[in-house]
């Protein structure tokens, strides 16, 4: 029908990368769980192994989708003492990967060797349901899985099983299918699954910029002019 589409890439890279790291830290250090213990009175005495999480020092981080957001995530994680970055995707990106010394590996190897897996890829027919039973079964028992891409990249039943059975240590999800999850969804009952309400780009500054960009796209479209960011169909 000749309908043009404008979108707002790029301007939300920092906010989303930042939120991905925030979510990773909250999941691996059990922040919401610990905060709840403080409020509910569960924190009675202190014990050496109580509320222990997993540290980033000397860890291997696997990034699924080393696009703009994936790169911004890697940049932020680097000074946390990450020993090695792995990444996977449709193909290697040597110039981009060089900044982090990141190694391009198949998805299976990324699952096997990563202490932290961060999903920042686009949702496409190739990535739909990509994080499934096979993927989670290869991950380490001490590993943490973070998804800030799209809910549909993850097979949620398989993720639930992996978490409930201790195949992976914890997960952080900014995105699910659907959003919000139904009130009786099993993922909501897991203490080691931190779920956020799709707030990757949810900051005043970024949403303002996105709104202005969206309006500029719209005005350009209505005037028959080139848009600042047009999706090529």
């Amino acid at each position: 029908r000749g309908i043009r589409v404008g979108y707002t890439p790029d301007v939300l890279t920092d906010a989303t990368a930042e939120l991905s790291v925030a979510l990773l830290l909250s999941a691996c250090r059990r922040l919401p769980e610990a905060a709840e213990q403080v409020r509910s009175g569960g924190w009675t005495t202190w014990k050496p192994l109580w509320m222990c999480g997993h540290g980033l020092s000397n860890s291997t981080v696997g990034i699924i989708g080393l696009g703009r957001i994936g790169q911004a995530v890697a940049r932020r994680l680097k000074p946390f003492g990450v020993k090695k970055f792995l990444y996977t995707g449709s193909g290697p990106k040597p110039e981009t990967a060089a900044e982090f010394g990141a190694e391009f590996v198949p998805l299976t190897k990324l699952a096997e060797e990563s202490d932290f897996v961060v999903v920042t890829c686009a949702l496409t027919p190739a990535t739909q349901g990509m994080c499934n039973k096979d993927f989670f079964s290869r991950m380490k028992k001490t590993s943490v899985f973070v998804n800030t891409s799209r809910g549909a990249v993850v097979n949620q039943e398989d993720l639930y099983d992996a978490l409930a059975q201790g195949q992976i240590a914890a997960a952080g999800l900014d995105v699910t299918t659907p959003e919000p999850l139904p009130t009786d969804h099993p993922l909501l009952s897991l203490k080691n699954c931190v779920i956020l309400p799709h707030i990757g780009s949810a900051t005043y500054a970024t949403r303002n910029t996105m709104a202005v960009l969206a309006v500029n796209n719209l005005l350009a479209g209505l005037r028959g002019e080139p848009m600042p960011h047009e999706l090529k169909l």
Partner: protein
Amino acid sequence: MWYHKPVVNKELLQSLPNLRIIASSGVGVDHLDLNLLSSYGVKVSNTPFVVSTDTADLGMALMLASSRRLVEGYEMAISPDTDYFPADWLGTEVSGATLGIVGMGTIGYKVAERAKAFEMKILYHNRSQRKKEEESAVGAVYCKKIDDLLQQSDFVLLAVNLTPQTHKLIGKRELELMKPTATLINISRGLVMDQDALVEALQKKIIKAAALDVTYPEPLPRDHPLLKLKNVIITPHIGSATKKTRRIMMEEMTESIQAGLAGLPVPHEVL
């Protein structure tokens, strides 16, 4: 000893005439009367550097969680009362903001290293200025007067140790110097803050929010106002809480004890 129990006082020391060494977990020794222990000929060791990385990580985690409203967001996402996620539910970015680090020791410096990757502007206040190379590695600017740091920072992070000089370092005056949009993060000791002044400042919106891994006492009494404030995140002193680090702490404490009992030089002795 793990954490700060048992309380080490004259009665305890008198009842333990053969006590040669106390190996204390973590880096802080503010819970120990070092003069008293010295007078009884008891050595003290701590576990200084091993806790630094995890504690710096937690400092970052608290700053990010507060700024992006993570705990609130989590509660919304899992709540049975949530029908949809509102589009105007927003937080504030950490990236590009100004971080003021009070206490640029090992932990403070590690926080600076992490914050730099978020393109934060870093100010710091310390007893002494760090070397030029250390400052430029993280882009940190020295504030000889704490007031300068307080007035310019979007996030103020406390990473000092607790001493008579840092007791209630941040009180009513300091809180009022901070921006009303600023967030206070404490990963040092509860007593570095005037806690009552903090409660008042948060209630009156003199500062925007606080994220605390440490309070006084720990845990807080069940009816404490800090537990009820919406703009506060409190974690139960988990700065060094990873299995790996706790294990290394235990190993170091054991080494110190063995050396102490054998009359050998004690690793990580606190003098």
